[in-house]
């Protein structure tokens, strides 16, 4: 914090111009909150952090058996189906985790909100960071999978952080929106799991987006997660995946629009959180 005496002006009906500066000065709290959530999640568990590996791993195996062996769904080029599914599952798990955690985060921290001031956006942000941690752990599993199948990605893999950033924004936008709405309308507690459930079918997780008929492909791509998952497949499947640019642009546009809407609505609603929660 700065040593000089700072002056805070609180004026009725005016959004505090210092908000983003405050956010920066509270950055340590962001780490502390995420650190708390990571600690709490694995307290009193026997295998602890291994849960972050087991869940995606078992899902991948089940999906491979059901959709590849039984339903005979095609993979992407020469890439093994398991790898194709896992590369899609990683960002999908991140999205569903981050989106649902962010939506409930404000309600779970009700006491802090009514008692203490800090930029409220830290709460959903920190809950997303926790899921990001899980994602990084699961990434290790992917490396193991590459070794097992003897499959190696090429130079495109350096783009993964870029698509991860898109995944973050895809979860953050709707997450902020539903988090703020949840404070006032508890209905969204039921809406979010539904979106997550349906999302699995309208996102290219268990299948490749190249299976979508050409006529539908652009409309299909309005789902922000289509761009993210396609991006992951393009970056990690060593050129076995052909990129569909118009779809990616559409997906990116929706993604950014939702992020903007999320941030704006959250900022507007934030002022009355402690009164209505």
């Amino acid at each position, binding site marked *: 914090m700065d040593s000089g005496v700072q002056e805070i002006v609180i004026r009725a009906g005016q959004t505090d111009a210092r908000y983003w500066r405050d956010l920066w000065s509270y950055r340590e709290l962001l780490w502390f909150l995420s650190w708390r959530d990571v600690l709490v999640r694995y307290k009193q568990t026997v295998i602890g952090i291994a849960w972050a590996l087991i869940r995606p791993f078992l899902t991948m195996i089940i999906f491979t058996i059901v959709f590849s062996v039984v339903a005979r769904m095609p993979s992407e080029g020469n890439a093994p189906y398991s790898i194709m599914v896992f590369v899609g599952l990683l960002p999908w798990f991140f999205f569903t985790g981050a989106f649902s955690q962010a939506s409930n985060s404000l309600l779970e921290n009700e006491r802090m909100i009514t008692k203490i001031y800090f930029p409220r956006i830290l709460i959903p942000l920190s809950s997303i960071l926790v899921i990001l941690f899980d994602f990084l752990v699961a990434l290790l599993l992917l490396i193991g999978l590459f070794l097992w199948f003897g499959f190696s990605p090429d130079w495109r893999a350096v783009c993964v952080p870029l698509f991860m950033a898109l995944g973050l924004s895809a979860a953050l936008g709707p997450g902020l929106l539903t988090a703020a709405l949840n404070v006032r309308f*508890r*209905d969204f507690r039921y809406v979010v799991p539904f979106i997550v459930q349906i999302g699995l079918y309208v996102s290219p997780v268990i299948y490749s987006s190249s299976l979508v008929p050409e006529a539908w492909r652009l409309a299909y791509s309005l789902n922000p997660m289509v761009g993210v998952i396609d991006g992951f497949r393009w970056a990690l499947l060593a050129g076995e995946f052909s990129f569909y640019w118009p779809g990616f642009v559409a997906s990116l546009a929706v993604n950014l629009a939702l992020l903007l809407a999320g941030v704006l609505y959250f900022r507007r609603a934030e002022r009355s959180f402690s009164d209505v929660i």
Partner: protein
Amino acid sequence: MGIAIRAENVSKSYTISHQQQPYLLLRDVMASGARNFARGALDVIRGRNRARSSAQEEFWALKGIDLEVNDGERIGIIGRNGAGKSTLLKILSRTTEPTTGEIRIRGRIASLLEVGTGFHPELTGRENVFLNAAILGMTRQEIHRRFDEIVAFAEVERFLDTPVKRYSSGMYVRLAFAVAAHLDPEILIIDEVLSVGDAQFQKKCLGRMEQVGREGRTVIFVSHSMQTVLSLCSRGILLDGGRIVAAGSAHDAVTAYRELGASNQIDRTWLLPGQAPGNEWIRLRSACIRPASTVASGQLTIRTPFCVEVVYDANLRAEAFFLGVRVRTDYGDIIFASGSIPMPIEPGTYHSECTVPGDLLNDGVYVVDVSFARDGTVPLFRAEELLSFEIHDVERASGAWLGKIPGAVRPRLKWETERLSVSAPA
């Protein structure tokens, strides 16, 4: 000396809805939106003014507060429940925004609206110190620097690596307060934290607060304990009905508060369950204080036995349900506490009363807290300052002492004097 806080014309209004649901459902908003739209459209067609929705009402928790606090001043804010104290603190600590007005605050501000905010039961004492300190605005460096001091103050060294869910409530509170007491803001906002812990720890906290004040920090203090306000604060502000009704020395404010207390609340009834104090298990319907015998009427005197009566809805099943009544002076000192005999309970509406004998309390203003609990230690609900009443003095025997008789209680004791011998007149 500069000005630490300057508030001008600060008001805060809340919209209270007379619906019974604890929170809004989207369905209701859409339905009432559609209804209002239809009604509005009809009104426009009929050329009438649009009426406001009757289910909602505006409530002003604060009205036109002007306040100036100098650097290094220790200011006490007092007032009855619902006077607006907490709202004022919330606005100053920025957890809620004012509806009108402007506030300028110079310096870092930290609020202790409730100790232990952000404590997580699963985390150890050590982890919670870091987390809580960060939530209250300390940086990582500051926490490292003061960690040992905090732990020593809380006296929990041996349990640092135990999850706080295994702490006794005393240890928990001590640790929470210790973190808060080691914040270094220019302005410290404190709400009722001193009412926790045992007497010895309270003394320690008071000492710490005085030290903070001496270091030149500004302290804003809200309390129900007039004694604490008098001993800690240099200035006092009395709030009532959302306005400042008295400001001046702490002593003046406390005197004004006592006069206000005379307009007591001996009979309260809540018609709408949404406004009655309570929670998911207990919801009050009415509460009153009345003379125990029907003969006596009007004023309660030091001689009158009286009853504390509550009618409430209980929504639980328990083997051993009991009530507690606590009578305090308006200074916050507890005169006595009494618990009912445990009994089994089923959902329903109940009436409970507790008879307090005459010749017990001294004259003065008293406050009653009522609590509900089950199975020995499980609290269900506590209504603080539910009622307040005044005990009047009675006419004393002619020639007796005329001044105020000191003491919290005024028992009628047996006195005997007998003459042992007759001495010769000097």
